[in-house]
């Protein structure tokens, strides 16, 4: 291994050799970022501070009679509405009896509609109840079908419009208007929003301008505008979950 004449330097050389390796190891440890950041999971979770509507799943059966029986006793038409609605429920309940979960949803709608049809000149208390129930309804059905505008009060509609305008303005800042030609075409995009205002997936174009560059520009602008301004209130946000945004690249609604 080692020649005799090399003995005097062997120890020194060994020490230097070790030193070189220690230096390299140190360099390796310092120069690399050994901490690796990995996304914990891809699933995104929406956190709601309060439930958007009355618990539907938790108490499916006791719910339907409650709104009828509880607020109504305070009102005058208690004897009138109660038996009638009850009779209605019983009549309706009988055909779908084999399926218990269905009657939970169905008896509710007739109740709402009944007072409107039967007693148009009701006092405002009943009107309020109707209003409240209509407000609840979109939230109940929001996952399956977005509720129509009639289920909103003017105040809420105003707020929703305000937020839609905010979204339009924010998107507008990012649009390259020169790509959209001389006209002011109307584009329509559908997108799913998270409560943070971020777009889930990509926006789908429902109606294009006819100019591919313009369509792409608007789509980019929408993506760039994230997070979009959305209402903090859970009830209001429900209208933004599946948003259809009409958009004019040159401004105007």
């Amino acid at each position: 291994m080692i020649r005799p004449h090399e003995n005097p330097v062997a120890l020194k050389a060994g020490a230097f050799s070790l030193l070189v390796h220690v230096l390299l190891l140190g360099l390796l440890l310092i120069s690399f970022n050994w901490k690796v950041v990995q996304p914990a999971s891809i699933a995104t979770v929406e956190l709601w501070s309060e439930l958007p509507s009355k618990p539907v799943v938790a108490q499916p059966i006791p719910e339907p009679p409650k709104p009828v029986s509880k607020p109504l006793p305070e009102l005058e038409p208690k004897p009138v509405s109660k038996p009638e609605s009850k009779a209605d429920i019983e009549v309706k309940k009988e055909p779908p009896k084999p399926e218990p979960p269905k009657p939970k949803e169905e008896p509710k709608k007739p109740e709402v509609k009944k007072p409107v049809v039967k007693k148009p000149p009701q006092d405002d208390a009943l009107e309020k109840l109707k209003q409240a129930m209509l407000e609840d309804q979109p939230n109940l059905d929001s996952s399956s079908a977005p509720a129509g505008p009639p289920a909103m009060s003017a105040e809420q509609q105003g707020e929703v419009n305000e937020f839609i305008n905010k979204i339009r303005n924010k998107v507008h800042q990012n649009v390259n208007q020169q790509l959209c030609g001389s006209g002011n075409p109307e584009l329509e995009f559908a997108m799913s929003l998270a409560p943070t205002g971020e777009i889930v997936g990509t926006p789908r174009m429902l109606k294009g301008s006819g100019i591919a560059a313009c369509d792409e520009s608007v789509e980019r602008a929408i993506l760039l505008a994230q997070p979009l301004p959305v209402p903090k209130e859970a009830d209001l946000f429900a209208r933004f979950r599946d948003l259809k945004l009409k958009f004019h690249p040159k401004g105007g609604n």
Partner: protein
Amino acid sequence: MNPTDLHATTDMSLIALVSGASVPVQLVMLLLVLVSLASWWYIFIKVYTLKRAEAEAEDFEDRFWAGGDLNKLYEGVTSSRHKPQGMASLFEAGFKEYARLRRQGGMEISDTMEGARRAMRATYNREMDELDAHLPFLASVGSVSPYIGLLGTVWGIMNAFLGLANTAQATLAQVAPGIAEALIATAIGLFAAIPAVIAYNRFASSVDRLSVRYESFIEEFTNILQRKV
């Protein structure tokens, strides 16, 4: 929402990577680390010994060409505590043989010269062997250790991909650690090979220059001895 809350940090330290590797890859790494240590050891040894041999040759040439009595020079070389090395040992062997043959008497000049020359040749070969020591090892390390490292890497990557076959959805994150730990083997192999190759080339040229110096000294010394006769 703080984005860092959504992420988990994992410590992919060097130790974790090495200990996570499969046994053949670990063996390859261990072998390469040992080889690297040994080659650096030899590199430093050669640096010192070659430097000393060059300094001694320089020193001896100065003394030799300064003129003066060859007998005195011989006395000085042999009387030192250490066994003469390098050029001094060539001189010592040649002069000793020459003096012995001269004392014996009754020989042709050419035979005396031939004897002295042979003695110097033999010493020259011994010296060259000392100078060449460990150079074959460095050459082997330089040429082979990249392949050993590559073998470890290929093995580790094979493992990583075989493990991937069991998962339905293959992501880069599943193979990346395996490949990273496999690549360490190549890194160690290259770290052992590159200095070994550089050192081998440098030392080989140093040894060549020294051997030329020794050979020309042998020729010149033979001439001087012949003139003395």
